[in-house]
């Protein structure tokens, strides 16, 4: 298959997979899982804040300063699921063995959620300092940075796949 065709096939498969995964993620059936995931993210964020010597109260997906002068709720778009879905779509569209794809899905989830954890915790502190800085970092900056993180994660995974393929094809 020519390189151009291969890339076209990748792009088509990517958009198809992303469309389907977003349809599943936004369906009412999966809503409790998405909400549960968001609460788990809030729990982990609160634990990390505590482990770092900070103070934080958590109720559901809400993180609040103990004196209640600041509180924030993690919602859709802040839980990193959108970028995980885009990355999963790219991994599923990429021609790789299924075992490596499965490893890639796990790597993508970990890589994005690690960055997202940094986002949530940084926003918790930024919000206590300045409302406008919080708005900027929350709505615009972190969203863009997480997408860039997704590209890096995909780049690392695809290079590993290519290296495995080259090694497998090399004469012994």
């Amino acid at each position, binding site marked *: 298959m020519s390189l151009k065709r291969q890339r076209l096939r*990748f792009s088509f498969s990517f958009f198809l997979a992303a469309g389907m995964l*977003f349809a599943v993620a936004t369906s009412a059936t999966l809503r409790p899982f998405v909400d549960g995931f968001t609460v788990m993210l809030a729990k982990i964020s609160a634990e990390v804040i505590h482990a770092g010597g900070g103070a934080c109260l958590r109720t559901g997906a809400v993180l609040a300063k103990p004196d209640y002068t600041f509180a924030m709720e993690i919602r859709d778009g802040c839980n990193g699921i959108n970028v995980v879905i885009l990355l999963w779509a790219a991994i599923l569209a990429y021609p790789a063995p299924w075992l490596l794809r499965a490893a890639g899905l796990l790597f993508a989830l970990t890589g994005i959620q690690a960055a997202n954890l940094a986002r949530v915790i940084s926003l918790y502190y930024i919000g206590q300092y300045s409302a406008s800085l919080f708005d900027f970092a929350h709505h615009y900056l972190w969203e863009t940075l997480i997408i*860039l993180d997704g590209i890096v994660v995909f780049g690392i995974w695809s290079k590993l796949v290519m290296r495995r393929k080259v090694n497998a094809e090399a004469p012994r």
Partner: protein
Amino acid sequence: MKWWWERSLMFRATVLTTLVLCGWYWLLREASLEVLKAVSYLPLALLVAPSTHAPVRVSPQTGEWIFNVAIDRQVRNPSTGVMQEVSSIEFLAKPDNFAFFAVGWFAYLGMALSDKHLGRGGMRTLLRCLAWQTGLNILGVVLYVYVNGHGSVLREGDVSEWLLKYLYHLNYLVLPFLGPIVVAFRVHEEWREYWRRSIGPV
């Protein structure tokens, strides 16, 4: 740091996109929203608004944007339960709700400036890509207005309610941030090179 700057496109993109977005947020946000409103006017008039009303105007009291959306169908009145013909509806939105669609210009600029090969002829490429990005931003605004207008007259549990929610999710939470990256990958040499190294040949 210098090594990272010279070697890593992603490092440069992170730094420059952050700087450009800071400049946009604190200096150019309101101006960019005005530009977005101006360039969206005609597409909104042609695709979403009824022919009898202006697609968007500004509330003199609150500064909010008032949109008109053509509906032209029978809907159930939630308070009386009676079906009635609705030709169009009006809704208000804060200008800041549209910042998600204006940010694309600047996120793209940050990524474009991080391309080391953006030298001679770079201005033409930049303008061409900004035109594409403008198209994506307008698409975002048109979809936002359409979804909000039609979403307000749908019955709970309707299949089209899910479809509108799905569209809203993609339009508001995914496309504004994916768009600039796609434009950069399509056009800019260093981004294309990064993409080539990432996806193939396999």
